[in-house]
């Protein structure tokens, strides 16, 4: 029974809660702090380098364990990315994302957490972000159709 509940999202809910808590504690939910980190040529706040360092210090060992597993702990499949392509989509997409991140100081996780806190600008940011994601789906759909027709 316990396993059953976990498989239906309880574990993901709790991990979401932990991740969101970590984002607030780290300072990632303060756009001013994010921009302070990105402001290398001004009054620089190096805090976010510590966020990255702390996260990777734990993640490094976890993914070494995960890499050798054939199943997750609930018995489901491991679905780690297999793509190795460093292509235009990856690079241009990341460049575009970084520009948006630097403009407002929000990346997707902190924006959702701030939406949960009821901040008006986070609400608008998330709506625009979802529209951007829907634009991607639409463009991908059109590309698939063109490919099928051609």
């Amino acid at each position, binding site marked *: 029974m316990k396993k059953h509940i976990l498989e239906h999202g309880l574990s993901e809910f709790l*991990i979401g809660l932990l991740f969101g808590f970590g984002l607030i504690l780290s300072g990632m939910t303060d756009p001013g702090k994010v921009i302070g980190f990105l402001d290398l040529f001004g*009054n620089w706040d190096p805090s976010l380098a510590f966020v990255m360092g702390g996260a990777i210090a734990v993640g490094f060992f976890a993914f070494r364990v995960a890499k050798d597993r054939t199943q997750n702990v609930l018995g489901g499949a491991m679905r780690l990315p297999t793509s190795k392509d460093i292509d235009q989509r990856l690079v241009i997409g990341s460049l575009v994302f970084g520009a948006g991140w630097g403009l407002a100081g929000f990346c997707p996780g902190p924006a959702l957490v701030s939406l949960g806190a009821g901040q008006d600008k986070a609400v608008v940011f*998330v709506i625009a972000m979802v529209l951007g994601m829907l634009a991607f789906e639409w463009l991908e759909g059109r590309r698939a159709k063109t490919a099928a027709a051609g």
Partner: protein
Amino acid sequence: MTIDWSHFTPWASLAGGILLGLASALFVLVNGRILGISGILGGLLKPKVGDVAWRAAFIVGLLAAPLLYAALRGPWDVRIEAGWGTVVAAGLLVGIGTRYASGCTSGHGVCGLSRLSPRSLVATLAFMGTGFGTVFVVKHLLG
């Protein structure tokens, strides 16, 4: 460059980062996937049978995190300087960019670098690069 000592929070940021790493570790072991916010949210926009509940549950957890944080630790700093138009433009860029890149700060920056993925290293260098560049333009060239 000067260091902004008044806002520098090495211990809270390190502790928060450790929690992010811990959450990513639990996620890959329980769910089998990379904990990447843009991918988890993006998957809800083109829903597949049996692939919705866990994504929704995770997002609800993120949305509920402020309640837990406020109850345990009280309020936190929020400084938003961007105007409404900038917020809309930024949201659109982040939405479309992260989907083309197959990841954002969490998927590429935390999980990808943790698993030493060359793709994620390129992605992280690219988004940090335009992040630094955009702030430089906005604060020092236009500001």
